[in-house]
């Protein structure tokens, strides 16, 4: 073990810079850095010791670093909502769609393995989700006539299949909402700003 739980908070410590634009934050804590790091209540951290041992840190608190340097990866425990839109020009049948996808971190160890030692921004997540949502839509074109709830379930299963093959393996997606361009009301079209 290259870290241990500290009983009292310390003045100098390293903390995650997880903000609204970052989903996973990575930092190498070197010899010149403080000897402590902090894990907040809504975070999980993964520590990689100099001997390669991986330690999941699920309890919030201040941790003392016994052997340096160590790699620390922080990620939010709480799910995050991502809105994506696919224009009708991007699909084969001229129908666009938009969706609200809730991403749950369900396998932190897999997330760490997939992302490796770097940060993951919301923009990168959006790009990946947009690509796999479009692919899912194309695969399920023949199911579009089905009841929307049934379609949403099918969409969710397929989306998660594709998600597992990306850098976001370790997260589970839940489609909170999906709407197609042909569902737009004329009033909404009139209110929409011109491109």
């Amino acid at each position, binding site marked *: 073990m290259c870290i241990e739980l500290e009983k009292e908070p310390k003045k100098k410590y390293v903390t995650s810079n997880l903000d609204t634009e970052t989903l996973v934050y990575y930092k190498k804590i070197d010899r010149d850095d403080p000897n402590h790091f902090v894990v907040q209540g809504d975070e999980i951290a993964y520590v990689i010791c100099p001997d390669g041992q991986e330690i999941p840190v699920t309890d919030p608190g201040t941790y003392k670093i016994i052997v340096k340097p160590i790699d620390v990866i922080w990620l939010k425990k709480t799910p995050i909502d991502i809105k994506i839109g696919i224009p009708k020009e991007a699909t084969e049948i001229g129908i666009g769609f938009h969706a609200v996808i809730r991403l749950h971190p369900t396998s932190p*160890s897999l997330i760490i393995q997939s992302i490796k030692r770097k940060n993951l921004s919301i923009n990168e997540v959006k790009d990946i989700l947009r690509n796999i949502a479009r692919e899912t839509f194309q695969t399920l074109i023949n199911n579009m006539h089905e009841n929307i709830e049934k379609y949403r379930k099918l969409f969710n299963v397929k989306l998660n299949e594709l998600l597992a093959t990306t850098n976001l393996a370790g997260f589970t997606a839940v489609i909170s909402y999906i709407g197609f361009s042909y569902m737009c009301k004329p009033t909404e079209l009139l209110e929409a700003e011109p491109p």
Partner: protein
Amino acid sequence: MSMCLRKTLEAFIRHKRSTINEWIMELKRQALINLDTTTANMLIELENHIGTLMPLKTQYSPNEYITALRSHALILSYLNELLEMVKNMLPPDMIRDIMLKMISLVKGGLSLDFGGIAIQCKNLLQSLHEIGNQIFAEGTRKYLVTIIESCGFGELSKEGEFLLRESIASLIQSMEKPYITMEEISMKMGIKENQTKKIIKKLSSIYPEILSKNDIISTRQKIETWIENTIKEKVSEEEVHKLKDLFPEQLESAYITNAKKLTKMFNNLLEGE
């Protein structure tokens, strides 16, 4: 208060919580993919409960804190085995119910009743029949072995010693032959052989029903059941009933004669004739 015991139990609790949470997350993942929000929410609730399974040092005196650690570690050991063995066999709500009942056993001051917790867990798990007994046996074994291997047999509480005796007795009971060897106990329990020898010596001095000589261990109960089973295996129930209906008096007389013969045979065997 032993520093080794405190550190071992705290590490054991952290490790088990982390493993249990990974399993819960896997179940949650399946529920989320199928948009089953009821199950997902139920699992989130369970995850939060598991997160609280570590006694607060400030709530207890030093000795009480160790007892609370022991109780939490034992409960987590059972929860871990429960998930490992039945997570794909039983519906999640049934697993959750048993888990919540077990978690409630260590809430607040209840965690100081270690013996009571072990008994109640056994009763709860028995509702799952054979698999429940396996969960209890394996959960107990892992808890005991962690303490014995890290800090020694002396760090077990009185209740822990009792649990160890029960584990060894059920091991002996599960054997086909009427005894078990020291090496077999060592392998099945996961404890080093020299440590096992010390444990058996101590246990047989506290509990006379454990019989030990020359690396062979047994119990009176095991010897009795072994003899009973050996005789039963050779007797056809149907034929005995037929004989009872046809010749009841002769059967009774034959039974008495044979019981005498059997006693004589055992005496001869024991005297080496």
